[in-house]
């Protein structure tokens, strides 16, 4: 059982400002059903451009609901400039702290607020947060990780997972997250990460097919299986590797993406740089 503060419990059992605003001035939506939590945050301004009304709808655990409820209380009466300064830490502090593993709930609050303000201002927030996807399980980019690292002064992969969920799935991105942490800290890793990269030599067709099969078996399938899914090699046409998916992979909306990103990277790493993965249903 999580050790929630009295204030978290209070906001969970008696959520403030739950519901919807008709014709809101700004709306921000983050998360999804698939990820396990989602927040829709909306606000309305008064004639002095101060937030007069704020409401939320949350799908999520106790601390996700409490974080959203707290956020609405925190922003009411503030100008957008003032509200924009609220960090995820502020939300957690307001709640008398959150368990480390639940800090991502406060990050979700901050993201929804930011997204709602951007919506009001007519800015495409998604463009701003664009970056390279690091965690394929939860779709978290390097930019998002960098930001949380800086704002919360984090130093370990576990911290990053607690705050953003990145690295909490298949765990394959842990070394990438570590690289980002070191980069942000301004440190340079003394020794490069050990990777079993075989020398890329010219391959015969048979060798190439074997190597593709081996790579799928050794590097790709185990990761998908821990996720309850599976991958099967259908055909190889030149540099195109055609595969099908089984199990939960097919139900997951991010499966195409997961595969392209993950399988292709692995095959490029271990077989050849020009490999393209094609998913056949």
């Amino acid at each position: 059982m999580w050790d929630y503060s009295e204030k978290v419990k209070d906001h969970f059992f008696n959520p403030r400002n739950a519901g919807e605003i008709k014709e809101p001035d700004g709306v921000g939506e983050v998360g999804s059903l698939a990820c396990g939590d989602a927040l829709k945050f909306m606000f309305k301004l008064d004639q002095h451009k101060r937030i007069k009304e704020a409401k939320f709808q949350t799908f999520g655990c106790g601390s996700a609901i409490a974080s959203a409820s707290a956020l609405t209380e925190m922003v009411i009466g503030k100008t957008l400039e003032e509200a924009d300064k609220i960090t995820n830490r502020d939300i957690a502090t307001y709640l008398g702290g959150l368990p480390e593993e639940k800090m991502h709930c406060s990050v979700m609050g901050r993201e929804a607020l930011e997204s709602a303000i951007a919506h009001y201002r007519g800015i495409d927030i998604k463009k701003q947060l664009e970056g390279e996807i690091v965690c394929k399980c939860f779709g978290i980019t390097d930019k998002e990780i960098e930001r949380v690292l800086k704002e919360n002064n984090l130093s370990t992969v576990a911290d990053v997972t607690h705050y953003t969920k990145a690295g909490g799935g298949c765990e394959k991105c842990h070394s990438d997250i570590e690289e980002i942490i070191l980069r942000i800290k301004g440190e340079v890793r003394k020794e490069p990460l050990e990777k079993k990269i075989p020398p890329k030599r010219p391959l015969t067709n048979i060798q190439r097919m074997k190597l593709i099969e081996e790579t799928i078996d050794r590097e790709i399938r185990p990761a998908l299986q821990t996720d309850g899914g599976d991958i099967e090699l259908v055909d190889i046409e030149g540099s195109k590797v055609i595969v099908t998916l089984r199990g939960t992979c097919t139900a997951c909306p991010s499966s195409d993406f997961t595969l392209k990103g993950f399988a292709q990277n692995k095959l490029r790493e271990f077989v050849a740089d020009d490999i393209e993965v094609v998913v056949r249903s």
Partner: protein
Amino acid sequence: MKTIYLDNNATTRVAPEVVDEMLPYFSEYYGNPSSMHSFGGQIEKKVRDAREKLARLLNCDPSEIVFTSCGTESDNTAIRGTLESHTQKKHIITTRVEHPAVLNLSRHLNKNGYQVTELSVDKKGQLELDELEDTINDATAIVSIMYANNETGVIFPIEEIGTIVKSKGIVFHCDAVQAVGKIPLDMSKSTIDLLSLSGHKFHAPKGIGALYVRKGTKFTPFMVGGHQEKGRRAGTENVPYIIGLGKAAELALEHLKDENTLVKALRDRLENALLTKCPDSCVNGDRAHRLPNTTSISFEYVEGEAILLLLSEKGIAASSGSACTSGSLEPSHVLRAMGVPFTRVHGSVRLSLSRYTTEGEINYTIEQLPPIVKRLRDISPFGKSTS
């Protein structure tokens, strides 16, 4: 506030008769059964009695019972012991829905040179027996498949599986931690070679388990040391707990019929009422082949931990396959292996009854749970058109 305990697949209340039986063996009869004096010797007799009681529950010979400290130790003993007895064989077959005691052990062994096949399950949580048949090969040392699933209660066709496994001459281990005491087991007619059980799942205390080892099964001990348990499990016997386990087994045998009539009737009533009262809800797993005490229900558009917190506020203890209830961000591996969509995995709640569950408690739960789901759906951004 009185607790309505509907989490009996996690652990159970120790039966009062079990406690009574155990107590004298802490301060009065504290001898070591291995001792040569009669003060210890009388204890040895009690340990023998307990072994006989447990053997009666499984319908096996008492000499086929090895006491361990828990289900996990039994699983480790069975799998590691078998591998050590068949050093030339490096392949393990198990399923994707096993308890971590087997799943993480086989994944650990996979990193240490063993090949592991994890059989998949269908939407109902059932195995494809053809897949099992296809995967067995000359290198297969052991097939380890659970009797009944802890999250969904789904019961595998163990004897059909065992027939396939034994026809190839391979050791068959079955993690029956959730099945023992809930459904009848008869080792005299079974294909199972090794069977794990845990006391605290059927009203004995935590910290005691057993491994059934069929006569003639090659076996290498996991715990090495003294000669206890005929050299099959070293370490001074946990006497009071062994006696408690024996008593719990005796009670389980007496109440076995109730599990499949009274408990099952309460479970069915609870399940049907919740499905009727809560729109967008469904049962996870094969309803026709299930433990009599378990139901796993998914409520769409809401998250499991939030349901559990509100239930807990009402004095009801349950569990969930949602990611937020575990320390990790990963939701239930069992429901995901079954291909249950994420939307349903996150809102899954497991309710597991015992023979101590009363009709009043079930009525109260039927009253309390639907408004909780509605309340959370009211503040959820999803599912507005249907609820």
